[in-house]
């Protein structure tokens, strides 16, 4: 992300540092249910891109299939988007990001799209540490097919029809940390302040930034039997720390008391400031993060916040050793070897 010159704002108009108004970050009108947690996430995505001043023409939006995966149409209408096939967004994103390393990629998936049909591709995406933001809009059910359990549904949770889920859930954050994702966070769609800060930090991170966002399904999974209902999530969310994000282009605020904060410097120089709440939490300690997730899960609570960050881990693009220009934009002069090369190869077969 580059830092363009600060434009002079027109009087009375709200613009960001690259001179765009908030509407430039909006997409088409949502078709999801009124009150759907996913819409709140869409709003935070719009806020985060706007506030960071990301050029929307330099963004790739990707998704799989499901309610969650519809949402890229609802933000950043000036970006190229690809609503691909169920559970396979990671592979499409891998090809796209490798082919054009200059773009900022954001993928939106769901708990079924990631945890069930797409778990294989999810695993390998995390393992590759592909530079992208990967959001799971996690409501513990299949909304678009009317409420069946997904693999993140909690043990013992109940469908409207009375069916009890008797399989343990997959914790996508635990999995992502184990597999090599270099930025792992969990948040709640009903916590705009925290979610926005996490999204901004994720966009500034270089590597896979995996964010599991609990997002109650108001139609199929927002009842008393559900641990992914608004009321349950509100009551059982355990924020690790108060997440503040300071972009690289802003001075670090002096408001934080050094004795009770942890600062992590991200790839582009942005700062992640976690102020102490219940305990000192160091998000660069992998074992500590895994332990915390297990402990809170045993108490039927959700630890929210930035769980794990490894800011300097080489990402997949680094490992490939590519030229600086996007592969997709290389022309014939760069990609078709000359006649001497063919002659040499032919000689080897004589």
């Amino acid at each position: 992300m580059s830092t363009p010159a600060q434009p002079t704002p027109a009087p009375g108009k709200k613009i960001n540092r690259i001179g765009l108004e908030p509407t430039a970050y909006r997409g088409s009108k949502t078709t999801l249910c009124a009150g759907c947690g996913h819409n709140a996430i869409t709003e935070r995505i719009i806020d985060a891109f706007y506030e960071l001043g990301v050029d929307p023409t330099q963004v790739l939006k990707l998704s799989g299939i499901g309610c969650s995966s519809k949402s890229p149409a609802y933000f950043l209408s000036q970006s190229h988007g690809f609503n691909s096939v169920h559970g396979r967004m990671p592979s499409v994103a891998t090809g796209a990001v490798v082919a054009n390393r200059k773009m900022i990629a954001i993928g939106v998936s769901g708990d079924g799209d990631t945890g069930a049909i797409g778990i294989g591709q999810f695993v390998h995406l995390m393992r590759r540490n592909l530079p992208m933001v990967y959001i799971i809009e996690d409501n513990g059910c299949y909304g678009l097919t009317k409420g069946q359990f997904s693999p993140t549904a909690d043990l013992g949770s109940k469908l409207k029809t009375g069916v009890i889920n008797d399989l343990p859930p997959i914790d996508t954050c635990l999995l992502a940390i184990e597999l090599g994702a270099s930025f792992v966070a969990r948040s709640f769609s009903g916590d705009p302040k925290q979610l926005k800060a996490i999204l901004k930090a994720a966009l500034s991170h270089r590597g896979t930034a995996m964010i599991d966002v609990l997002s109650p399904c108001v139609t199929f999974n927002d009842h008393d039997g559900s641990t992914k209902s608004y009321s349950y999530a509100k009551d059982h969310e355990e924020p690790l720390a108060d997440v503040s994000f300071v972009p690289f282009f802003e001075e670090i605020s002096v408001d934080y008391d050094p004795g009770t904060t942890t600062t992590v410097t991200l790839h582009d120089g942005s700062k992640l400031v976690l102020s102490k709440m219940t305990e000192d939490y160091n998000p660069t300690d992998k074992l500590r993060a895994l332990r915390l997730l297990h402990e809170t899960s045993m108490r039927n609570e959700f630890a929210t916040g930035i769980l794990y960050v490894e800011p300097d881990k080489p990402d997949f693009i680094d490992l490939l050793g590519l030229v600086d220009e996007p592969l997709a934009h290389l022309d014939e002069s760069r990609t078709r070897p000359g006649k001497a090369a063919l002659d040499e190869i032919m000689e080897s077969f004589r």
Partner: protein
Amino acid sequence: MSVTDAAVHEAATREPAARIVNDFAIQVATVNGSGSQTANLVLLRSIFQMGVPVSGKNMFPSNIAGLPTWYTIRASARGYIGRKKEVDFLVALNPETAREDVLTLAPGAAVVYDEPLKLRDLRGDLVFYPVPFDKIIGTITHDAKLRRLVRNMIYDGVLSRLLAIDMGQMEKALRKQLGRKQKALEMNMAALKAGYDYAQATFTKQDPFVIEPMNKTTGMILIEGNAAAAIGCMMAGVTFVAWYPITPSSSLPEALIDYLKKYRRDPDTGKTTYAVVQAEDELAALGMVIGAGWTGARAMTSTAGPGVSLMAEFAGLGYYAEVPAVIFDIQRAGPSTGLPTRTGQQDILSTAVLSHGDTNHPLLLPASVAECYTMAMEAFDLAEQLQQPIFVMSDLDLGMNTWMAEPFEYPTRPFNRGKRLDKAALARIGQFGRYKDVDGDGIPYRTVPGDGLPPYFARGSGHNEQALYSERADDYMRNLDRLSRKFQTAKTIMPRPEVELVEEGGIGIIAYGTSHWAVVEARDQMKGEYGVTTSYLRLRAYPFSKELDDFIDRCDRVYVVEQNRDAQMMSLLRIDLTPARVIKLRSIRHYAGLPIDGRSVTTDLLTQEGKEGLETPGSGLGTVGAD
């Protein structure tokens, strides 16, 4: 257990043989993992270097070590490089298969065998040359590992003497094969010479087979189809490769990786102008290719039937979202896992309509290593021109066997990037609609991320001309009809068939891919031996172009020759052709897992024509028993 699909021969009195020069097949039967490949390639190459047209076919098990493997080298003065079913000269080194290998030989054939196998008593109508391999190798080295590795060079030496293959050419071929590995070279040379000396001292030539120098391979190369395709992909400017290992495809991406490493690094920075990703499965491999193609990269993958099955979902997405992609299918024998190391043309029908819904895909049908090279380049152009996945339907026989060819020519045409929107085009067409048929050929304009032109939202769900989500019946049908129109356009830009029309109203033959080589030979056999002339059309692409209709109209009846059980190409023809043309079609099929041979085509066709006194056809029913 035998790899042959020839019948077991009864012992019969052998006619005294005349000399048979440069027209016979040598088969070497060994155990895989025993290092016979070097010896076989040296044998092949030395005949090639003597100017004699030659081809090599490896019939190997789906296994790393310990199972039977056969390598057939065919010398053909007339230049036939298809498979010859009958083995004339056997090198029997595998105790497991030796007995059946010998029993299936035609009378008059010759056998070099490992002495302890005691094969001589099996038949009275063959020529036997027993060679004590272990005794001979004992004089060269006592190192058990080295003995195993160079032991096979002994038969090269024996054959050099018996078949009059020039020892100087053997040495030259060995140097070519081993490169600068001096120690290995010395050991192999010693084994080669020991074999020659043994044969010279021991055997009197009793068989008729000899190699004599010719000048028919001057300037030519020996190459496998997968390497040829890899060179084509590099020359086509591929920038993104995703693949998953599978036989018989893996050697294509592996060769490509080697070439890219050598020729596609920025000379100043050492950075690469390509990326290769080994995916977690074929599904992800095509997903990555679709992602890369969407952003404007020239992207490809290579696989075989089981991989194509997994790719069905993304093939449909590529078709409907209209994303360029190149997919090589190195076909092998199915169904299911089938025979991974045997050949076939068994994915034609399923690939043409791969994925659910109304979907169809253009196929390229390479018959030669030269076409593996040229069609690789054409595939990338076509993928961008047609904005959809293009399948290149090679097979194991073409991809993994060694073929001679003229050296490949450097491409003269620049890349065709298709309808990529630019500012001039935008000004001309007015408003950009990603799926709008501006020119009437069904092909819309496209933009890619980062090109500064209007973006669009690609999706596999229903969409209108503006790429917006739509469930409207008129939007949906307009789009499907446009895709259909695009498929019609494909007919006009895909490679045209090769047609040889001999006479009006006679017998026609249609074939494609590696079946071509059997047809070339069969046509000569039918004409030379039976006075039956045939016209021939070799398909090079699907969808079919109008030359096909004209060809069928000019023939009374048309035999479609292919290597699958279910007449897959004929099924596609039946879908496309008018009833008056369909009734002219007849089918010749070969599905033994082994490459089709000319004699089987001749026999089958003439039997269907009602010619008496021919061997019963049914080459597809032969026994295959590698594992």
